[in-house]
Every structure is written in C-alpha cells, then in structure tokens.
C-alpha cells in the first residue's frame, strides 16, 4: 500500500492552510484529497469581497483568497488529487478513496487532517410543512448556480434564515435583477454578521423580519408562494399573524452542519454542541494522529480564523510526525459555562501546550454589556466587559500555559458570560 506522511482530506481553505503549515514545519510527503474538480472549496463560489482582512490586511474575494493558498501549495509542490472522494478513514489511518483514474484505492497515512468543511441544513431538516415544488434551494446551492454556473434560480425571492450566505445571496440576487421580498429569521436576532446585515440588506432596502418563519409552501410544480408567520418565545407560529408572499424562489440559510460522516465512521468522538470532533489543544481528535480544523470542526464566521486554526493543525500534525508532540499527560476539560454554547478545544493537556492557547467559542444569545469570564476552578482569571456578544460572531480568549502550570490540581477551565 502506498503511503504519505500526511493526508489531508479536503482542499478548501482549511486543508490548504494545514498543508502549507505542515510543509513549512518540515513535512514533505503530503497529499491533499479533494472531491471537487478544483482546489479552494466553497470559497470558489464566494465572489463577494471581505475575505482576508486579518490574514492579508486587504479585502479579497473568495476565489482570490483561495488562490493565495493554492499558489502556496503549488510553490511547495504539495501533491493533490482532485475529483477524488474519500470513502473511509480507518482508526489506524488507512484512507480509502475513489476516482475515475484509479478506481477505489487505499493509502496509508502517518497522520490525517480532517478538513471536509460543512453543509447547509436542508428544508427537510427544518420541518417546513407544505408542498415540495421546484424553486426551493439552500442559499449555497443558489450561490453556486448563480456565481459559478451563471443561472438564475428565480426572479421573486423570499429568504428564510439570516445566516451569512443568505444575506450575501439577498444582495447577489438583487444585483442579478431578481426581487428579494424579505428575509425571515426565526430567532429574535440575526444569524449573520452585522456588516452583512448593513451591506446586503439595509443598503438595498430588503426587510429583515425577525421572529418570523415560513409556515407553508405553496405550488405543486414550481413554487408560487410562501406563508410566513410570527413566532412566540418558544419559536411556535402565532395564529393570526400569517402573511402570504407570492414568490417563485425560496432560499434557505438556516445553519451549517460540519460534515463528519467520515469522522463518525472512523470512530472519532463528536461533540453534540458543534457536531464536529472533540479535539484538544493540538486539534487532535480522540484517535491518535487524526487532527481536525476548519468548518468540519466547528462552523466559523470568518475564513481568516479557519486559516489560523488550520495552520495550527498543520503545525501540530507535523510535530506528531516528527515525534515532537509530547504525550498528552494530564488533561483538563474546558467547560462551556453560562451563556456559552461550546468551546474549541474542549479539553487541554497543559504538558504539551504552547505558551498560550486560543480558545474559540460562540455565545448562545445576544448580550450587551456583559462580561466574558474565564474561571480556573473557583478562581476567575479573566473578566472582560464586552459591548456586544452575538451568536453569529465567533469569540476567542487566550489562556497562558503558565496559569495552568501553577495549578497542578486544576479540574476544569470554564468560559462563561456574566452579567456583573
């Protein structure tokens, strides 16, 4: 069986960054497996700008951002197999894949980085009742049709969900000549970034209807309209608030799900909070030598953070391959306390930490003027006032290794939001 030191599953922003970092740390036998016909992943259809402000201090489009990393991969002569679908990863890191040229084949890997990205929640998973006509797309599918294939999914559009792709598509569909009637959002706050609300809805006069959802879908062949209604505090539609909106297109932007079928089948422990693997400070899963980064790990808001995280995964996988990654030693759980939905990582091994560690997390509701706190058991080591905290934006804090070393009996790190 042919082998590589490092096999990276997925050639999107996470996989590309991880490959570059691993190469720069000295790993040479690297293979990227990509199921699409080109590298770059979902960035290829994100033709709007706003990517790379943190990484490159400039505003790039998605394809431009991807191109920077594709160039880095090419400069390093890192091997890639395109149009290649990974079918299985075994716990001992045998990767089974299929493509047109080789059929089904197996490769042995010294280390594996999972970087498969995420998918959109489809209509069925949202339990929207009604007919099942043509004209209902997830926002990402519509984005592909419009931006890559040049086709318009429809002319009169309602968007359900205010996730970032939905907001971006509200603007895109408008620029392409469609009429976007409204964006309905089940929650009482937007699921997207503030800048997208302003630049994609407000600038075009598209109404955002918070605490509203689609309660019926009309049209037997092609969509003819949707009924939306206001919801109560339990997200149940309030009778009497129904409004009918004629439209031929319904776009759904109701959340992203890390795509972890391979991980699950391999035996990687998944977190119910993120739907991604449970990882430690090295972004290593419960299976030795299998790492994860990017949207397969948890859904990010900005690609820059995907890159940062994936550099880390690549660097750590390189250390593992070079026998420089110390054994795990004592482990300290990181707990998502009050107001925090999850943290990544969710466990820390102080003995093999760097001098400091970035904990990424999301809050569970919108909070204004609350405090972000970190507790080491009963001792609060961080208490920072935040003007606004929102679930749409990923937050992060840094933990110093020295803080943990001082406390050999530490039982948990807790990140929480406090009113005072």
């Amino acid at each position, binding site marked *: 069986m042919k082998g590589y030191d490092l096999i990276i599953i997925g050639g999107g922003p996470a996989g590309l960054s991880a490959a570059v970092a691993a190469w720069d740390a000295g790993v040479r036998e690297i293979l990227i497996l990509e199921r699409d016909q080109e590298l770059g992943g979902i960035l290829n259809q994100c033709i709007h700008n706003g990517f790379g402000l943190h990484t490159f201090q400039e505003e790039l489009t998605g394809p431009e951002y991807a191109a920077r990393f594709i160039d880095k991969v090419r400069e390093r002569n890192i091997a890639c197999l395109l149009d290649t679908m990974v079918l299985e990863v075994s716990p001992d890191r045998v990767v089974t894949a299929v493509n047109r040229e080789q059929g*089904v084949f197996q490769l042995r890997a010294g280390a594996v980085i999972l970087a498969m990205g995420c*998918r959109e929640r489809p209509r069925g*998973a949202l339990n929207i*009742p009604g007919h099942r006509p043509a004209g209902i797309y997830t926002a990402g599918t519509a984005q592909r049709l*419009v931006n890559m294939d040049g086709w318009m999914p429809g002319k009169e559009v309602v968007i359900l969900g205010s996730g970032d792709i939905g907001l971006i598509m509200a603007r895109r569909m408008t620029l392409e000549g469609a009429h976007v009637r409204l964006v309905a959002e089940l929650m009482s706050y937007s699921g997207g970034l503030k800048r997208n609300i302003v630049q994609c809805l407000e600038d075009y006069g598209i109404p955002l209807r918070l605490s509203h959802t689609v309660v019926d879908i009309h049209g037997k*062949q092609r969509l003819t309209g949707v009924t939306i209604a206001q919801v109560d505090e339990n997200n149940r539609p309030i009778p009497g608030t129904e409004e009918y909106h004629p439209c031929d297109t319904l776009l759904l932007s109701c959340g992203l799900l890390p795509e972890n079928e391979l991980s699950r089948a391999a035996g990687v422990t998944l977190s119910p909070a993120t739907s991604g693997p449970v990882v430690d400070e090295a972004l290593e899963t419960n299976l030795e030598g299998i790492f994860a980064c990017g949207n397969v790990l948890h859904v990010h808001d900005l690609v820059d953070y995907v890159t940062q995280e994936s550099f880390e995964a690549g660097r750590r996988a390189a250390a593992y391959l070079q026998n420089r990654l110390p054994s795990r030693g004592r482990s300290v759980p990181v707990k998502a306390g009050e107001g925090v939905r999850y943290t990544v990582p969710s466990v820390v091994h102080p003995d093999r930490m760097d001098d400091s560690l970035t904990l990424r997390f999301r809050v569970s509701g919108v909070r204004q003027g609350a405090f972000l706190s970190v507790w080491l058991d009963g001792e609060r080591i961080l208490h920072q006032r935040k003007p606004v905290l929102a679930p749409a934006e990923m937050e992060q804090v840094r933990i110093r290794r020295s803080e943990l070393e001082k406390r050999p009996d530490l039982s948990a790190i807790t990140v929480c939001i406090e009113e005072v």
Partner: protein
Amino acid sequence: MYDILIIGAGVSGCAAARELSRLQASVCVVEAREDVCSGTSKANSGLAHAGFDAREGSLMARLNVEGSRIMESLSEELDFPYRRNGALVLCLSEEDRPGLETLLARGRANGVEGLEILSREQVLAREPHVNPGVTAALWAPSAAIICPFELNLALAENAAENGVVFRFNTRVTGFSPMEGYWQIQTDQGPLEAKCVVNAAGVYAAQLHNLVSQTKLHITPRRGDYYLLDKTAGSYVNSTIFQLPTKYGKGVLVTPTVHGNLLVGPTAIDIDDPEGTNTTREGLEEISRKVESTVTGIPFRETITSFAGLRAHEDGHEFIIQEVEDAPGFFDCAGIESPGLTAAPAIGRMVAGLIRDKLALEEKAHFQPRRKGITDPWALSPQERQALIAREPDYGQIICRCENVTAGQILEAIRRPLGARSLDGIKRRVRPGMGRCQGGFCSPKVMELLARELGIGLEQVNKCGPGSELVTGVTKEADYEGV
C-alpha cells in the same frame, strides 16, 4: 389500435402491463406525469405486508398474501431491493390483548405463515427502543421492506422490454364506447384500444364514473411521513406497528431497504387529488403518536418529510373487475395499502381477466428477467475496479451523501424509460435522497440531464413540465420597474 390500454404507470398499472406482456397482445400504458411511479406508488411505507390486517375473505386479504409470497422471488427476477425484516404489532395494555388474538386468528385465516405472539420480554429483547410498557406483540416473520420506486420501475422496464409502449405526459380526459373497442381521449389526442385498464390511483373513480352508471367514490387519504438519516436507520430492526385501539391506529416505524428510518403515516382525508403537502398538524401528530410505540426517536436526524395519498374507496376494498355496464373497461381501483405488496398479484389478476376476455395466447419469447442499474458498491472489489477501468464514470462520485456515481446517473437517463427529471433520477439512483437533500449534487445532476437530453438547463425540471429549476441566465435581468 392497441389491444389493451392501461391508464396509470403506478405500481398497479405497471404490474398489469408486465403480466400482459407475457401474452400476444399490444399494450400501451398512458401516464399523466413525466415518469413512472409518480403518484401513490412513490410516497408510501415501502412495505411488503404479511397480510394479517385485511378482512378475512376479502380480495384485499387474498392479493396481499399472494403478493407477499411472490415478492421475494420477484425481487430476484427483476433485481430490486427486498429485505425480510419481519413486523411486530405492539399491544400496549392487557385490556387490548383480545385484539391481538383476533389479529393472530385473522392472519392465520388469511394464510399468513409463521405468526406468533411474543411476550413483553421477547419483544424488548428484539427491539430495545420499543416502549417498555408493551405487554405483548404479534410477530409476523414474513413481513418485508422493499423499495417502492425500484419495484415500480422494474415492472415497467421489464414490460417495456417485452414490447409494452409507454406514453408519458398524457392525461386521459374521456372515453367513447365504439363497436368492440374504446376510443380514449387524451390531452395528446385520441387513442384506441379493445380493452381499457383503469389504474389511475386517486383519479380512478373519476374515470370510472365517466363510463358507468354505478358510481365509485375514492377519497384521497393523505399520509405524512418523516424520513430520518441513515445514522438513525437501525433504531428499530423490524417494522413496528401499534395494535389499533379505540384511541386510534397509531403510526409505524420501520427501517427502509436503503438504511434510513421512516416514521408515519397520518391518515387525513382531503379533497385535492394532488394535495401532497405536509402540514404542521400532521407532522406533530406523528411525533406525538410514535412515542407510545417507539420511544426517543432522534427526530433531529430528520432529513425530509413528505406526504402520499392513498386511493381510499368507500368500501375499503380493491375493485378489480370488468365494469358491468362498460364491457372491455376494467377497473383496478381502490388500491390503497396493502396495494404495494399486492401489486404483483393484482397484475396477475388483471392480466387473467383480460386474457379470458380477449382469448389471448402466451408469447413464445417472454423475457422475465430485468437487470437493475449497475450499483458499483454492490460489486466485489475486483469487479468494481474492472468496471471503473472500463467506464470511469462509475468512479466519479456526484452525490456525496449516497455515494452515487456519474455512471449510475447516466445509466438512469439512458435506459429504456429513462429518467427525464431530477426527481426521476433521484428515485432511480438516489442522488439527493441523502442528508444534504441535493444541496451539493443537484446542480451537477441538472447539468448531466441537460447534456444527455440535449436541452438547455432552463428546460431541466424537477418533476415534469412546469417544475423547471432555473428561470434563465444571470446578467439578463429585465431591470424595468426595478
């Protein structure tokens, strides 16, 4: 002029067509939709019922048990998925126990084999997720799960191979009795046939009433379902029913032959024969009712919900006979559950009636076997490598959730009675049936359809004319009035 014209390319019509294709006769199937299996046959529980449910002595009971007995060998002959997983009917209180005994006695009278009553412990040992309050259950080992699409398609393809003509997008609008034959009006012009088979599902009464003074009444009875991801597919092993009580019938839980979990259906009488919309009330009814039989179903793994319509005739009986005041016009009506199971037997019965009517002889060279679409994942590794080396399209995954290859999709389009719509491809080889519901693959499948059919992408549709998927190209917007 055809000898026989069958209205409806659902499972009953196609089963009849296949049986008639054994005979020396010209047969045509007309279908209002763009594909076979587009009505009741496409949205149901996908079960081969054992046959304990139907009333003793009824035609329904006889054809159910006969269909159940034929189904396994038919699945080998026609190459469609079949798995005998058995069924359990749960009794949830001691006072309902006589009802379970009645069901056992009825099943035995109907000729169902292997029925037995299991104790609470036996049930829970087989099915750990069943409500622990269960008191006993009827076990029917001959019950099975099948793929309703592939059964329907296999019957149709085999009929076509044996000479049956199919006309799609052709809606029957009226009949004129002629001297020894019928003229059939359609929206594509008139057709003629010596005999007509009315297998029009929820429209069967409407058609019957055009030719007969003895009126039929069929109610579309809607059934809503939840379909869960394969991660939940082994939540139960057998098909779990609830013993009907004075409080109602309950809903069933079953694995599907493709490894998903199916929960439903409701039974809601409606007027619209195209009313396959789910409702919030219907879906909530399922999740509420199922708790009494199978607890803790992971509904967060739901990938879609859908509804199908049963063709419920007022007498709750299959009506398969020559219409008394319309000689040569044969009803195949009121085919509701267990219609899918009974279909092979229904086909035989219809063919028998017409063979006698027209004194038809058997064909010398009937081809009984049909080979399904190549499934590279069902092959041995060596066979699969050889296939991909020969035809690389079978090594190119288009649908990542169900691992469907370009080769399978192309085959689905290129075969006789090939797919003409996105849903047609989905029913044949499953791209879009998985957890992302076509989010990633549908643009690619649309491109393949356009290329193979030699049409523009704007003509590619989801389920027939009027369901086109895109409205035009970008940058060509009409900005007037914007």
